[in-house]
């Protein structure tokens, strides 16, 4: 099976859907001629023409707003916001229009829209090119929020998202574009060509939204992670020797609560890791759900390891980033009961 980077897999997913469905249109800043700053749309304009893959002005509100209109009419726009950090001008359209169209039209209209956004840090991007705003979307009813962690999932999840009748926020951890980054920024990255999850099936397939997957089976504690943090957690488990069960959530909403509950009931302990800030982060929601559903099986308080409650720093990126050392320390503390 051919191995692809995550960027290539995402491009492949769009390619497959453009081929199958004339209603799929792709646009955003630098997306057409230039092929996207991360090259996710490279070649699509040449293949499908300027009416199906095109450049827009730098107008996030306009991009998303126009896409919602297209979607309401029956197209399936898959738009790119160049960095998740650029999303805020479009937030009103996402929250007040995309997420609400089905509800307020009593189901007469839906909004089959995908908004792709590179997310997360690790590239010295500082405060305006590193944020992880997933909780701003999961807090809004009417949106689905997806965070793939590898090329194979990325393609299948993207296809499922494009086919979904409702708006999907598709957050692509940019630090994973080229390989499974485990938080050791001072070591060379393993490319996807040397990783089995870089094996991307040809053609059309879906990874259904709302299905988590266990990346590492274990008995000592359950780790809930998504995106880049899946690999940080894997590294932390390997380095501490803690027999962690690592769950890759893949989609935050819909959430695979069943998988989470089954694992925590088995292990009795839970660590949640994400790169976004702690307060009101998605970890808070996960923590509450674990407590509500597994209270009598828990043997230790649920623990969150996240980015600090500060803006993403430029110079002190790796002090901010919840790397394998911090995650591993939490594993050891939760397992030993020494908190």
């Amino acid at each position, binding site marked *: 099976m051919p191995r692809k980077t995550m960027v290539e897999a995402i491009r492949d997913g769009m390619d497959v859907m453009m081929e199958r469905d004339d209603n799929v249109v792709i646009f955003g*800043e*630098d997306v*057409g*001629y*230039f092929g996207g*700053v991360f090259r996710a749309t490279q070649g699509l304009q040449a293949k499908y023409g300027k009416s199906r893959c095109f*450049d*827009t*002005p*730098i*107008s996030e*509100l*306009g991009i998303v707003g126009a896409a919602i209109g297209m979607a309401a009419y029956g197209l399936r726009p898959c738009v790119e916001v160049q960095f998740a*950090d*650029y999303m*805020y*001008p479009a937030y009103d359209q996402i929250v007040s229009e995309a997420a609400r169209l089905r509800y307020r039209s009593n189901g007469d209209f839906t909004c089959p829209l995908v908004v792709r956004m590179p997310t997360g840090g690790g*590239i*010295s*991007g*500082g*405060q*305006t*090119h590193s944020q992880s705003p997933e909780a701003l979307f999961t807090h809004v009813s009417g949106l689905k929020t997806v965070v793939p962690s590898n090329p194979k999932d990325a393609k299948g999840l993207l296809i499922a998202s494009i086919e979904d009748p409702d708006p999907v926020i598709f957050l692509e951890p940019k630090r994973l574009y080229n390989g499974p980054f485990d938080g050791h920024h001072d070591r060379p990255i393993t490319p996807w060509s040397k990783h089995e999850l870089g094996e991307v099936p040809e053609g059309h397939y879906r990874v259904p939204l709302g299905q988590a997957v266990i990346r590492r089976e274990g008995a000592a504690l359950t780790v809930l992670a998504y995106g880049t943090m899946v690999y940080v957690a894997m590294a932390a488990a390997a380095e501490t020797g803690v027999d962690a069960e690592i769950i890759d959530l893949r989609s935050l909403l819909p959430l695979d609560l069943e998988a989470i509950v089954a694992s925590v009931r088995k292990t009795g302990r839970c660590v949640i890791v994400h790169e976004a800030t702690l307060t009101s982060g998605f970890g808070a929601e996960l923590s509450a759900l674990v407590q509500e559903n597994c209270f009598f099986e828990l043997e230790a308080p649920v623990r969150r390891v996240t980015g*600090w*409650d*500060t*803006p993403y*720093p*430029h*110079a*002190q*990126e790796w*002090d*901010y980033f919840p790397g394998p050392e911090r995650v591993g320390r939490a594993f050891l503390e939760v397992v030993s009961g020494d908190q």
Partner: protein
Amino acid sequence: MAGAAAKSTRSPGRGVTEKDAPGAEGARRGDPSGDGAPQGANFTREDELTAYRSMLLIRRFEEKAGQLYGMGFIGGFCHLYIGQEAVVIGMQMAARPGDQVITGYRDHGHMLATGMDPKGVMAELTGRRSGYSKGKGGSMHMFSKEKQFFGGHGIVGAQVPLGTGIAFANRYRDNGAVTLTYFGDGAANQGQVYESFNMAELWKLPVVYVIENNRYAMGTAVTRASAQTDFSKRGASFNIPGEQVDGMDVRAVRAAGERAITFARDGKGPYILEMQTYRYRGHSMSDPAKYRSKEEVQKMREERDCIEMVRKRLLESWKMPEEELKTIDAKVREIVNEAAEFAQHDPEPEPAELWTHVLL
């Protein structure tokens, strides 16, 4: 030139800086070359030298930043201003102390132009303790209250409403200051720009919107992203006057800047200057710039370079000995090398710095 209707209502501005106050040393004015000088330019030998020195400082600083980036001393994003130097220097020559400056992410030149310390700017690029934001901000996010520089902003167009608000504060305090609000041709398509225009004209705010049209919004050419490519007309529906300016000619920039700033300072409201300029380097350090031809860049460098034009006038029209220019070149290099040296050896911020200046 666009905005002719607006322009025709007033005469070409004379200087507004103290040095250039009407009547002061009128005899030293005039275009020595006798041709090619933009209307109202009146550049003296001293003006040419100021422009040369200031633009060269930006050029050399940016070249050095590019080198340090290549060597791994600067991480993340770094947007070089090379090619556009005449815009910020010409405007700064037209402004007076107390006028504020705010811009986007291609901001190193603006900081140097307002007089910020090259060491502090370079040390912020390298993320060190003595950087203007102590490493918190990086290339795109630096500030100086002392120099009335309101930042470096990483989100395209986001500084435009802020610049409008600063101008409101000027009016509220009646302090006579004008806000120079810079943004690019790409940012000019953000909706918040037009909300700002409306308010600025509605309340007659003392703000000059300087649109640096360098022809490419990242990798997208102006013609592929803008329905109206004459940016001086972007304020037309709000009745904001505008002009297209040769942004490669520092004389034209200063002259237009004087007209615009005087207009705003006189309480007549906002003014738009579209600076037609060009960036030689990629959008950022990771941009191979495949969306334009090498010939196009080469042609601009050879025929329209803002520094070379001044240099040529100094040598040929003002008969300045080349040695004197070489002395300036050497001095500028020394300042830049010092800044680079400093920025490489200044310590990194203390770990506790992560937690300062934030609500916890």
